[in-house]
C-alpha cells in the first residue's frame, strides 16, 4: 500500500539528444488503479520500467510511499512487475516460480508456503502448483506471473501490457479477474496498455501519453477518470485517442463566439451551432470540430447537418458503419447508425450534428470547454 509520485520525470538517451519522456508529473494515490495509454512509441512502457527500476531516470524525482527511490534497485523499491511475455522461469514449477524471490530473501519455509498457498488460492492456481510453465495455457501462465508478484507483497503492482498476448475471450475473462484481484488486495497498481477498453474498464485514472513532439514541453497529454477523458478531452490528441471508433474531425472557422453556444462554418460551407465556450477566441479563428461516430444523427435534415458521399458501408446486423467523404473532413469520417439498411456507395448521406455533442478545438489543438456535456459520476 503506497502512493507513487512522479515529479518532472525525464528520460533521454544519447546524453540528452533524444528525449522519450519529458516533464512527467503525476500523483498516484494509495490503492488507485492507474492506466498508462498511448500509441506505440509514446514511452508508456519506458515510464513503467522507470518506476520499476529497470530503466534509470535521467532527471526528476520518483517517490514511492514518500521515500525517494531514484537510485534504488528494483527489489528495494518493493514493486511487483508482470511482464507482457510473462517471464516465468521455465525450469521451475509454479510453486518454485512463486517462491523464488522469497527464498532469495531468506524467508523461512513456513512463511513461504503460507504466502504461496494464499496467492494460489486468490488466483485459483492450487491444482497447478507442481506444473511447469510449458504445460500451462497462456491465461494460466499470466496468473502465475501475477502470483509471483503477489507473494512478494509489493507496495505497487506494475503491469506491462499483461493481456496483449492472450486471445480475445481470455482477455475479457482475465480483465475481470484483474479487477477482482485489485478489489481484493487494494494495492496501488499501474497498468500499461494500448487497449483503451482495458484502460476504461479497469482504471480509476487514465494517463494519456503521446509520442514526444519536436519542441513540446511534455508528452503527458491528460490525466483523469475514464469518463472525464471521454467527455472532456483536454486536446485533440486525447479526443482522437480515447473512444472507438475514433472521433471525426472537420476543418472550419469560428463565425460567432459565445460563452454558452458558438457558431462555426466548416470549410465545405455548412454552418454548425455548437455548445462550447469560445469566449477566449475571436471570429475567423481556425478550428476543428469533433463529433463521435455514435453521436451523429443519421439521415437528418434542416440545420446543423453535414452532407457527404458514402464511400463504404459495413453492415453488422444491428448497426452499420458508414464511411463518408466530404470536403471539410480531416483524415476520415465514420458514422455509427443503428440499422443495417442497404445504402449505395456514392450516394449522398446527410448527418445531423447535435450541438451538445460537439467538441471544438483551436488551431493548437486545445479544446473549448463543452457547456452541455452529459453528466457522469
Amino acid at each position, binding site marked *: 500500500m503506497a502512493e507513487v509520485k512522479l515529479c518532472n520525470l525525464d528520460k533521454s538517451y544519447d546524453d540528452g539528444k533524444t528525449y522519450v519522456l519529458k516533464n512527467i508529473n503525476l500523483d498516484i494515490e494509495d490503492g488507485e488503479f492507474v492506466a498508462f495509454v498511448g500509441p506505440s512509441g509514446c514511452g508508456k512502457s519506458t515510464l513503467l520500467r522507470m518506476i*520499476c*527500476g*529497470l530503466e534509470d531516470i535521467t532527471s526528476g524525482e520518483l517517490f514511492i510511499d514518500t521515500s525517494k527511490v531514484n537510485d534504488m*534497485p*528494483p*527489489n528495494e523499491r518493493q*514493486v*511487483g*512487475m508482470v*511482464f*507482457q*511475455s*510473462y*517471464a*516465468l*522461469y*521455465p*525450469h521451475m514449477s509454479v510453486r518454485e516460480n512463486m517462491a*523464488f*524471490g522469497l527464498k*532469495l*530473501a531468506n524467508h523461512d519455509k513456513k512463511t513461504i508456503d503460507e504466502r504461496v498457498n494464499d496467492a494460489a488460492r486468490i488466483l485459483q492456481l492450487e491444482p497447478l502448483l507442481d506444473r*511447469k*510453465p*510449458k*504445460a*500451462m495455457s*497462456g491465461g494460466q*501462465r499470466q496468473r502465475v*506471473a501475477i502470483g*509471483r*508478484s503477489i507473494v*512478494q507483497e509489493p507496495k505497487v503492482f506494475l503491469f506491462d501490457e499483461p493481456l496483449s*498476448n492472450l486471445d480475445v475471450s481470455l482477455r475479457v475473462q482475465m480483465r475481470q479477474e484483474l479487477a477482482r484481484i485489485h478489489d481484493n488486495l487494494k494495492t496501488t497498481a499501474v497498468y500499461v496498455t494500448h487497449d483503451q477498453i482495458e484502460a476504461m474498464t479497469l482504471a480509476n485514472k487514465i494517463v494519456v501519453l503521446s509520442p514526444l513532439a519536436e519542441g513540446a514541453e511534455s508528452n503527458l497529454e491528460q490525466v483523469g477518470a475514464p469518463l472525464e477523458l471521454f467527455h472532456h478531452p483536454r486536446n485533440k490528441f486525447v479526443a482522437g485517442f480515447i473512444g472507438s471508433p475514433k472521433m471525426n474531425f472537420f476543418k472550419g472557422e469560428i463565425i460567432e463566439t459565445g460563452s454558452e453556444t458558438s457558431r462555426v462554418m466548416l470549410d465545405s460551407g455548412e454552418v454548425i451551432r455548437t455548445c462550447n465556450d469560445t469566449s477566449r477566441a475571436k471570429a475567423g479563428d481556425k478550428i476543428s470540430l469533433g463529433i463521435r461516430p455514435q453521436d451523429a444523427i443519421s439521415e437528418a435534415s434542416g440545420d446543423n447537418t453535414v452532407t457527404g458521399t458514402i464511400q463504404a458501408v459495413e453492415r453488422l446486423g444491428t448497426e452499420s458503419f458508414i464511411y463518408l467523404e466530404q470536403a471539410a473532413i480531416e483524415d476520415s469520417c465514420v458514422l455509427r447508425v443503428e440499422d443495417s439498411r442497404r445504402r449505395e456507395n456514392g450516394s449522398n448521406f446527410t448527418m445531423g450534428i447535435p450541438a451538445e455533442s460537439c467538441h471544438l478545438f483551436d488551431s493548437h489543438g486545445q479544446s473549448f470547454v463543452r457547456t452541455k456535456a452529459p453528466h457522469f459520476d
Partner: protein
Amino acid sequence: MAMVQPRNLKYRVWAARLFLIAFVCMIMFPFLMIISVSLRSGNFATGSLIPENISLEHWALALGFNWTSADGTIIEPTFPVLSWLWNSVKVSVVTSSLILLLSTTGAYAFARFRFRFKQGLLESMMVLQMFPAVLALVAFYTIFDKLGNFIPWLGLNTHGALVLSYLGGVTMNIWLIKGYFESIDNALEESAAIDGATPWQAFRHILLPLSVPILAVVFILSFIGVIGEYPVASVLLQDVDKLTLAVGSKQYLNPQNYLWGDFAAAAVLTGLPITVIFLTAQRYLVSGLTSGGVKG
C-alpha cells in the same frame, strides 16, 4: 501424417536408405580397419578386415601386461600407454572445465552488459581465432620455457603449460554461448532482479540452468578437440611418461619400424574417453528447456 504422397515415394525412400547405409559403411570402415589391425598378430597394416588368427598381443602390451609370444620369449610393454591415457583424460577434463568456466562468464558479460570496446573485443577475438595455434608454436615454446623459470608448474614439459595454451580456445565458445544467451528473453533476468536477485544470482539460478544444452556442447567439443590435439602437445611435452595419448602413440611409428598393431590399440583407447563423455553428456543435450517461460 495423412498427407498425400507421390506414387514413387517407396523407391525414393529405398534409394535414400541405400545411400545412408553406404555412407555409414564409409565412415565405419577405417574404424573397423584399425580394430582389425590391433587384433592381428604381428605389425601389419594390410590384410583382411576379419583377422585370420586373433591375437591379444597388442592389447596386452597397451594395457601394460607382459606378453609371452609363441616361441616362448616374453615381451615387455615398451611404453606406458595407460599413463598416457590418464594424462590425456586429465588434461582434457581440466581444460574443458576451465574453458567452460571462462567462456560462460565471458559470454554473459558480452551478451548482457554494455561496456566500452565491446564490439572491438568481440571482433578481434573472432579474427585471432582464425590463425591456427600451430603458427604460434615457436612462441609457445619460448614463452613456457621462460615462464618455467618463475612458475615451475607452468614450464616446458608440464601439463599446466599444455592446459594454459589450450585455454586460447575460449574465444569461439564465447561466441557460441553468447548467441545462446541472447536467445533467452531478458525479461527473465529482469523479473529475477525484481524478485531480489543480484546479477550473479540471476545468472546462477536462471540463466545457467537454461543454458545446459549449449554448455554440454561446448564441453564435448573442447574435450574432443583437446584429446586429439597433436602439434602443441608434441612441442610442449618431452618426457615419455608425460605424453598424451595422441603424441605418445606416434612413438610406435619409428622411421624404420612401424608398429602398426600397437599403434592401433592405442588409437582405439583414445576413442574410449570421448565415448564415455559423450554418453554422459548426451542427456543434457535436450532442446526446448526454455519453452513455456515466455510467450513465443
